[in-house]
């Protein structure tokens, strides 16, 4: 067994489910012969045929909408948006239908669909190719929003998402699609969609991040260790519904917290996490929850994207602010 990348973890999960369940169909723009612009569906059409791994016309509203129809009629659609920046025309069908059909029909119908999209910046892509607007979708009742941050979690969480009886938005951090390799047996073992992952244990401060931002966050934790500061690093992975308990348990130890995300700060998920910490851990908090995030401006073209994205130095500054509070 050879070590695989995060994007290969996605492919392995798709192949596993296509093999296991004849109801699974994968579709989107260029997912067929081209194997997806990031090769996430590499080879799948050859193996499973054009009916099950299909290129669609260029229409995101359509991609989001037909997935609803397929799911309602007993298929297990896995729809790809080529980039998160092009998902917005699909929001209406996700928010108004995919997440509501079960409730609307009081359980008569259901909508087990997975919407996949590469997300996040840092790959020197053109405009609209670096979006991270997970907060928009995490506000939508009835949806699950899942973000893997390692090959193993990509594999296990995607298996779980495809098998989940309800709609899932599965956001793939493209900046780390090939950043690291890991041995991931094709065991068919899903990972839970309601548990945060503690990636590193520590008792001095809690660092929360997901997707690609975990890279810099873990590096900062390592750096802090050198200074004798023990940082606990938590990857919520399933951003909605959020496993706040694991976070609160960590705050019990640390009393200090930094949330890191690429997305703009205002109305980002850092706000929800900070708010819930305020609600559940008010007396535990020794310092304000620090949000280290993208700025509240448009994701710039790539010349400035690294100034926009939170880096180690900004994360570290957040950590210091939390550790040194009150001055």
């Amino acid at each position, binding site marked *: 067994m050879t070590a695989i990348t995060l994007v290969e973890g996605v492919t392995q999960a798709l192949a596993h489910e296509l093999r296991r369940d*004849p109801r699974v*169909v994968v579709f989107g723009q260029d997912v067929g012969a081209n194997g997806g612009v990031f090769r996430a569906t590499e080879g799948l059409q050859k193996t499973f045929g054009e*009916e099950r791994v299909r290129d*669609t*016309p260029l*229409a995101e*509203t*359509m991609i*989001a*909408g*037909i*997935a*609803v*129809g*397929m*799911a*309602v*009629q*007993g*298929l297990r*659609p896995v729809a790809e948006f080529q980039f998160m920046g092009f998902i917005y*025309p699909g929001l*209406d*069908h996700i928010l*108004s*239908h995919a997440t509501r*059909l*079960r*409730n*609307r*029909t*009081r*359980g*008569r*119908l*259901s909508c087990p669909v997975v919407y996949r999209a590469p997300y996040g910046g840092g790959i020197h892509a053109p405009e609209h190719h670096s979006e991270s607007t997970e907060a928009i979708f995490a506000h939508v*009742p*009835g949806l699950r929003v899942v973000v893997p941050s390692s090959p193993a979690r990509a594999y296990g969480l995607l298996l779980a998402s495809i098998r989940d*009886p*309800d709609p899932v938005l599965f956001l793939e951090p493209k900046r780390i699609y090939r950043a690291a390799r890991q041995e991931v047996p094709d065991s068919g073992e899903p990972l839970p969609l*309601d548990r945060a992952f503690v990636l590193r244990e520590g008792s001095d401060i809690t660092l929360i991040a997901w997707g690609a931002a975990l890279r810099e966050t873990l590096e900062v934790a390592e750096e802090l260790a050198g200074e004798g500061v023990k940082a606990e690093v938590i990857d919520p992975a399933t951003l909605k*519904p*959020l*496993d*706040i*308990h694991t976070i609160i348990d960590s705050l019990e130890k640390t009393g200090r917290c930094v949330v890191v995300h690429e997305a703009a700060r205002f109305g980002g998920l850092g706000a929800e996490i900070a708010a819930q910490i305020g609600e559940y851990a008010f007396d535990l908090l020794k310092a304000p929850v620090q949000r280290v995030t993208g700025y509240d401006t448009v994701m710039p073209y790539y010349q400035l994207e690294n100034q926009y994205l939170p880096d180690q130095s900004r994360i570290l500054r957040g950590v210091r602010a939390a550790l040194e509070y009150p001055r």
Partner: protein
Amino acid sequence: MHKPKMQLVASFDIARLQYLDARGQATQPLPGFATPDTLQALYRQMALARLVDDRAVKLQRTGQLGTYPSTLGQEAIGVGVGGALRTEDVYCPYYRETGALLERGVEIEEILAIWGGDERGQGFRHAPRDLPLCVPIATQLLHAAGIAFALKYRHQRLDEPARVAVSCAGEGATSKGDFYEALNLLGVWQLPAVFVINNNQWAISVPRHRQTATPTIAQKAVAAGVSALQVDGNDVIAVRSAVADAVARARGGEGPTLIEATSYRLCDHTTADDARRYRPEQELHEAEQSEPLVRLGTYLRGTGDWSDELEGELQRELAEVCERALRNYAERPRESATAMFDHLYAELPEALIEQYEELRNEEVAP
């Protein structure tokens, strides 16, 4: 401007189907299914739809129902469409659908419950596979396209019988991208689906000619390479026949069809609307001359298959049917508030238990 020589690369025709004209006269031999029994049944269903709409509007006026969209004058479309499907086919309604829903076996009290603000009405006890009523314009057409793919897939790969997805929308809906994206997919994927457009000439206050510049709605299928026709939507025989043929072609793997059924909205858009603000009186009066129920009645009386006596019996029977339904609607038990959580996910996520408890406590002790 110089006129260059150009080469013809493609041509398209749009045709219109009618069997009964506005005066109830046959304009050509009727199709095989049009036996006296069938026509009487169609007449009955149109009459029922009209009565249900009438009762629903009265319920709204007396505060017992929310906003309600009547199908007055368009009964031939719903009844013609609904009757042309097999039980196992999948119907994807919009919201102005009384006739089609009744044909599909949806209960009157379910229809009332939906507009009475109760999701349980969407339960469709006798049409379990059909989609619920759909409010966001034209979105159901994309769901129908996805369903058509699923039906084709399950027929070809899972050895299930050939089934068809049928969906309705208004002519206003054809201005929305969803309509076109769905139609284009039906064409390129050759999906077993039939789209029927209820062209009732108005989208709330926006008349057809401000909705699109095309002389017909049917021709919009040319943009998707889908076959299309226009039918007289006030002629239930034409509607039923056109839909039945299209459904048969779809079932046989011969691809999708767009059907424009021309009619007229003889009522307000909904009970929340007042059409007198924008609709010319004169236009309404002319439209009333070609309404579908009288038209079929005239024809049937002409062939001796209908009479004042039969009409009387029918109205008595339908009145009873409606009274029963209204009683069931009025007497249905209130739904617990926690129902808003019970079907959000298959299982209530841990993260929501606290809110669920909060709501339940509110309800027991407000």
